[in-house]
């Protein structure tokens, strides 16, 4: 599965990874709440949070390049909305506040998502009394995410090797047709999964 790189670090071995998932989630939540609620005038607090996150990264053995990569990919959204805030009185202060807070929160989320396997997050959600219907959907979605990404890629490659018309119109039509095909394959696979589940006693 070529796309397992998206979930490669959640199963490393480090003290951070070993912490119980429930505690990690609650800690992250607490950290985010504090970051969001407190004004950035308390600069020492934010500095402390940043140091905490950096130390955690070091202990977690996740490559710095990876963290930076994720931050760069996800930051633009925050930047876009933050820029809107510049056009108002006191805008610069709001802009800086948004940037600092959202980056710290984003960093926290990157850390927790890469030190906690999703199956443990699901277990934590189950303990928090999230309905089992939703948990099952999440588990299936997670399991087949990479399968579908692969299938989508294969369909794309097959298409690209057959068409030479790169016009935008053809592109949209062929991409949409691809998405349609992906849904059809997904629903056919869902039937087979149902057969496999009932074969092992599911009702």
């Amino acid at each position: 599965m070529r796309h397992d790189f998206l979930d490669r670090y959640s199963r490393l071995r480090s003290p951070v990874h070993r912490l119980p998932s429930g505690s990690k989630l609650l800690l992250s939540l607490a950290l985010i709440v504090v970051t969001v609620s407190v004004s950035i005038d308390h600069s020492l607090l934010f500095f402390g949070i940043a140091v905490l996150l950096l130390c955690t990264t070091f202990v977690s053995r996740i490559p710095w390049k990876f963290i930076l990569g994720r931050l760069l990919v996800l930051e633009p959204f925050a930047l876009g909305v933050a820029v809107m805030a510049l056009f108002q009185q006191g805008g610069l202060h709001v802009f800086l506040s948004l940037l600092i807070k959202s980056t710290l929160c984003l960093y926290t989320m990157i850390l927790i998502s890469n030190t906690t396997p999703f199956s443990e997050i699901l277990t934590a959600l189950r303990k928090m009394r999230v309905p089992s219907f939703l948990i099952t959907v999440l588990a299936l979605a997670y399991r087949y995410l990479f399968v579908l990404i692969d299938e989508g890629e294969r369909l794309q490659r097959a298409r690209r090797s057959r068409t030479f018309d790169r016009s935008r119109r053809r592109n949209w039509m062929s991409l949409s047709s691809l998405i349609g095909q992906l849904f059809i394959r997904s629903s056919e696979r869902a039937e087979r999964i149902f057969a496999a589940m009932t074969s092992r006693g599911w009702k």
Partner: protein
Amino acid sequence: MHIPDGFLDTKTAVTTGVLSATGLSMAVRHASKHVPSRQLPLIGLSAAFIFVAQMMNFPVAGGTSGHLIGGALAVVLLGPSAAVIVITSVLLIQALIFADGGLLALGANILNMAIVAPVCAYVVFVVVRRFLKDDRGMLVAASLAAWVSIVVAAIVCAGELALSGTVSWGLAFPAMAGVHALIGVGESLITMLVLAAIRSTRPELLHRSAATPTTSEQKALLVYGGIVVLALLILVVPFASTLPDGLISVAQSLGFEYRQNAQPAISTPFSNYTLPGIQSSAISSILAGFLGAALVFGLSYLFARIIAPKQREQALTSDQS
């Protein structure tokens, strides 16, 4: 439209959290009772499908690309409750595995994209279907539903940003509504094309699109509709119009401040959002919205004639869940 953490203040996060938790629990309750177990794998796979579909790059002008969000697509393929669950799952996976979208902001993101968007799409879809019953009509209905869903979700999002004091309403509303009116065109086009592709190969997968809501679905829809209305009342309406004094003081005591325009440091063309000749900015916004929808409807109708040249009568059958 994924709001990161840090852009919403606590009261907005909590309010949207409560609204979306209510909607989500209704969806789960309805789905677990009325979706046959045979469909459960399909719902799980559909969540993965929407996730992957969102990843596809649709080239727009000059190196930029657009992406499908899929609210309307999900609702036409799976029905309202399943769509709510599917998109919520996508948002949860994006936030918890890929750090895409904030944790505290999940309430708002789920409200906007998993409840408001699909529910609005469904309502528009069903209403238009009542008048256009054939296959081509299904495509037009889905197309318009997609556009409306994106725009309304964007407006609610603007309300959340404004209520948090992050961006003033006078700036957020026209920016979000305007940008997403354009993005919505892409969404409506892609939704229509994808449905046409499915229809040409496996039309039986679209059996839901011919169905009228069952009684249990109608009850669930009342709840979802109520949540959307509440969201609009709390997040949008007070900015767009003047509240009676009593309500203003109640709102203020709860910490809700509805300032329309923060004093702009730089004056922008967005400072006063009115159509020429109309006094109230609220009414002109609503009119602009209807004009936009009519335009999208017209374009969808024309486009559907191109991609679905054969007319097939398809009577509305009752759903068999």
